[in-house]
C-alpha cells in the first residue's frame, strides 16, 4: 500500500478506536455516538480494502444499530457506569487478556497465502462445510442455542416476578 492508503488507514483506524472506546466505556447518548463512529471508520477501512459492498452494508447496519441504541437509551441520563459484580470485573479483565493474546497472534503469526495439506482452507470452504456437508448438525446446534436462549429469557422473566 502506498502513502495515501497508509494515511487513510491511520486516520480511520483512529476514528474506529475512538468510537470503540466510547461505545465500550460510555453510557447513554455517547455510547450510540461511539457506535456511529465505529460504523464510519469501519466502512472507510472496508472501502480502502476494495470491499465496497461490505462497506455500504456495514455503514447501514451499524448506523441503524446506533440509532436503535440512541432511541432505546433516550429516556436515560448518561450516568457513570455501574461497576458490576466480581464476575463482571473478572470478565472485563479476561477481555484485556483476550486483547493481549490477539495482539500477540497478529504480530507473531505467520500468514500463508496458499493451501494446507488437507485441501483448501478458507472462508468459502468453511461456508461449504457448515451449510452443505454438516448442515443438519449446524441446524441442530442452532436449534439448541435458540431453545436455550428462549428458555433463559422465560426463566429470567419468571424469576423477576
Amino acid at each position, binding site marked *: 500500500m502506498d502513502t495515501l492508503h497508509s494515511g487513510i488507514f491511520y486516520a480511520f483506524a483512529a476514528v474506529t*478506536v475512538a468510537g*470503540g472506546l466510547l461505545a465500550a466505556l460510555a453510557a447513554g447518548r455517547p455510547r450510540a455516538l461511539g*457506535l456511529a463512529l*465505529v460504523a464510519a471508520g469501519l466502512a472507510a*477501512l472496508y472501502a480502502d480494502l476494495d470491499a465496497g459492498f*461490505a462497506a455500504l452494508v456495514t455503514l447501514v447496519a451499524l448506523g441503524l*444499530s446506533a440509532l436503535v441504541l440512541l432511541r432505546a437509551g433516550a429516556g436515560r441520563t448518561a450516568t457513570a457506569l455501574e461497576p458490576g459484580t466480581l464476575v463482571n470485573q473478572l470478565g472485563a479483565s479476561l477481555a484485556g487478556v483476550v486483547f493481549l493474546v*490477539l495482539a500477540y497472534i497478529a504480530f507473531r503469526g505467520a500468514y500463508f497465502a496458499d493451501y494446507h495439506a488437507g485441501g483448501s482452507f478458507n*472462508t468459502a470452504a468453511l*461456508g461449504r462445510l457448515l451449510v452443505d456437508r454438516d448442515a443438519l448438525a449446524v441446524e441442530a446446534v442452532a436449534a439448541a442455542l435458540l431453545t436455550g436462549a428462549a428458555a433463559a429469557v422465560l426463566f429470567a422473566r419468571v424469576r423477576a416476578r
Partner: protein
Amino acid sequence: MSVGIVHFLFLGGFLFAAGAFAVARQRSYLGAVAGLPLLLAGAGLDLVAVSRFATARSDQLAGQGFAVLLAMLVFAFVAVGAALNRLETPR
C-alpha cells in the same frame, strides 16, 4: 510505514476485545447489547483483511460475504436486544 495485514488484525483484535469488555463489564442490559456490534465488527474486519491480503488463489469475496452477514447479524442482535430491554424495563 506501509500498512499490512498485521495492522488490520491488530485493529480487529482491539474491537473484539473492546466488545468483550463492554459485554462483560456493564451490568445494564443495554450496555451489554452495545458491546455485541464491536465484537462482530472486529471479526468482520479480520475476515475482510485476511481475504484481501492472505488469500492468493481463493475467492476474495468469501471473506467479504461473511463480513456482510456479520453486519446484518449485528443489526438483528441490537434490534432484538433493544426490544427485550424495553419489555423488561418497568414503566
